[in-house]
């Protein structure tokens, strides 16, 4: 039982990380109907930025605030400058452009910061918290907390502000939104900016656990995709919950099914996701998109 609880807890911890990157994927998908393959690398790059700011003597939270701001502006700029020329191109063309961004970010990060693995500080205390015999890592708890706070903030933004309403309208019906005076192009850019911001936070939360290096996000991105799919690409809350589920399932399967061990963990998580999709093709919490024919 103790092992079970411990595995669930550490599954939740990694799941929080998957969930936060999944959240940023869902953000862009909802705003622009595009799956951004460069999301993980953008997050990695932001994390490097925070790292070099701290190396220049800035405090953690100052570096954090600066990085988040730069990430937001950077995401906005990428949409305006790079994605816009292919806005009306076929969807696969747009996907290839985001793949191009992925390799550029990865390669430039390796070029500037080298491929040496760097430690990244955690803002949370280091002493472990014990409840009975189950150990909670304070950083894990902090990361989960940050993810949940982000989710609540985003929910409030989209639900209660007029800007959030305008963004939702622009994503759902661009033509009508334009008619009522919403600047659809800028709403899309704002979506990219917000997603980059969420990604930057995810990057800074994950870096203390898996360390900083240019390829740190490739594995996480895969799980984030899986989480977003499981929860439903149309539901931000579902994506975060999907992240927790993937983290826990992966850990439990690895511990209890001896055939699986550590080398087939990923496969099991993916098989489960496919099974869920077969029963509920739009994810656990997603809604089916109905189109007029």
């Amino acid at each position, binding site marked *: 039982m103790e092992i079970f609880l411990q595995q669930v807890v550490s599954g939740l911890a990694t799941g929080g990380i998957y969930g936060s990157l999944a959240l940023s994927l869902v953000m862009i*998908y909802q705003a622009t109907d595009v799956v951004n393959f460069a999301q993980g690398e953008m997050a990695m790059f932001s994390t490097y930025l925070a790292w070099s700011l701290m190396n220049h003597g800035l405090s953690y939270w100052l570096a954090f605030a600066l990085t988040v701001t730069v990430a937001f502006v950077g995401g906005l700029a990428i949409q305006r400058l790079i994605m816009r020329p292919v806005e009306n*191109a076929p969807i696969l063309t747009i996907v290839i452009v985001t793949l191009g961004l992925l390799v550029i970010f990865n390669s430039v990060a390796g070029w500037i910061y080298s491929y040496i693995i760097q430690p990244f500080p955690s803002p949370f205390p280091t002493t472990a918290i014990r409840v009975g015999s189950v150990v909670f890592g304070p950083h894990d708890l902090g990361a989960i907390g940050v993810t949940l706070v982000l989710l609540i903030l985003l929910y409030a933004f989209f639900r209660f502000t007029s800007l959030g309403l305008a963004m939702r309208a622009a994503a759902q019906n661009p033509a009508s939104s334009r008619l009522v005076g919403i600047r659809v192009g800028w709403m899309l850019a704002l979506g990219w900016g917000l997603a980059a911001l969420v990604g930057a936070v995810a990057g800074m939360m994950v870096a203390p656990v898996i360390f900083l290096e240019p390829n740190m996000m490739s594995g996480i991105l895969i799980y984030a995709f899986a989480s977003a799919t499981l929860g439903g690409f149309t539901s931000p809350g579902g994506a975060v919950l999907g992240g927790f589920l993937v983290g826990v399932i992966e850990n439990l399967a690895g511990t209890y099914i001896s055939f699986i061990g550590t080398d087939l963990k*990923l*496969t099991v998580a993916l098989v489960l996701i496919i099974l869920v*999709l077969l029963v509920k*093709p739009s994810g656990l919490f997603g809604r089916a998109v109905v189109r007029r024919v």
Partner: protein
Amino acid sequence: MNSEISETVEAASAGEVAARVSAPPRVTPRAWEVAGLLALIAGACLLPFELSGFRLFQFTQVFVYAIALLGLNILTGYNGQISLGHGAFYGIGAYTAAIMIDRWGVPYGWTVPVAGVLCLVVGFLFGLPALRLEGLYLALATFALALSVPQILKHFDGWTGGSQGIVLSRPAAPLGLPLTADQWLYFLSLGVLLVLFMLGWNLLRGRTGRALVAIRDNPIAAEAMGVNAALYKSLAFGVSAAYTGVAGALSALAIAFVAPDTFNVFLSITFLVGIVIGGLASISGPIFGALFIQFVPNYAQDISKAAPWAIYGIFLIVFMYVMPYGVSGFLRLAWRRLTRATAGTRPK
């Protein structure tokens, strides 16, 4: 009946003009087109006597990639089902060849068709559940397939040799032909490429091709016209996987080595890049795409040793800006403009 279907197809694609590439080629080959094609093939046959071993190997690899890309194009370009998992079928094909040769001592010639048939079956079976998924979710499901194949290959190390892989010996030219192993593999791949492209062209320009495109453009209208969407979609999956499996088997012969990590997710993504760069829903697209994925990474390395992939990424983005419909789409457009310009000046 057939002409009615093709009209629907055209109406459907006219509605979505820019979003899709035009209907499959229904042109009858003209004399000069055939001549041009024969000249190209003749040129390809002369190449191995001009190039050194490594360059020749690169072109062999281009042919192998082109076969895989045609397979993916049948599924994604013509049928509109996005697959991020074709690296898996490529890997299954390669391992089929390697295991047959190394473990069972089967002559290598048999491995290529067997890999094709095996992948046809696997692809068809995978296509059945995939019927419920579309667009993004299908892409994710196939992505999962691509991810799990290297892990599964490593798990069954009794057959696959685990992460060490399997080393093969390169086949020598049969019947005492005066060719080196490199040259023989080149001609073998070229031959398979030509046969499969002929088959693919025949499949796609006729009734089947129209059905596939109709399903892509408007599944409901296609079903209303009597197209069995479920059957055609899973068949497209099977045929597509078979092409990619054959390519995988050929690559195992050409490289003479298979290892699980070669068939990773990035291979699948590279294939997708190849068909989009080459041009979706075109027969010539896979060739251009294969040239791109084989040579551009090397070229990027020549430009910048420090950050070659950044250069590659810039190439990708610039290509997509300049040719959003891929190389073959670009050529088609340029050709149309050119002929229209001359037709306009011609006196009636």
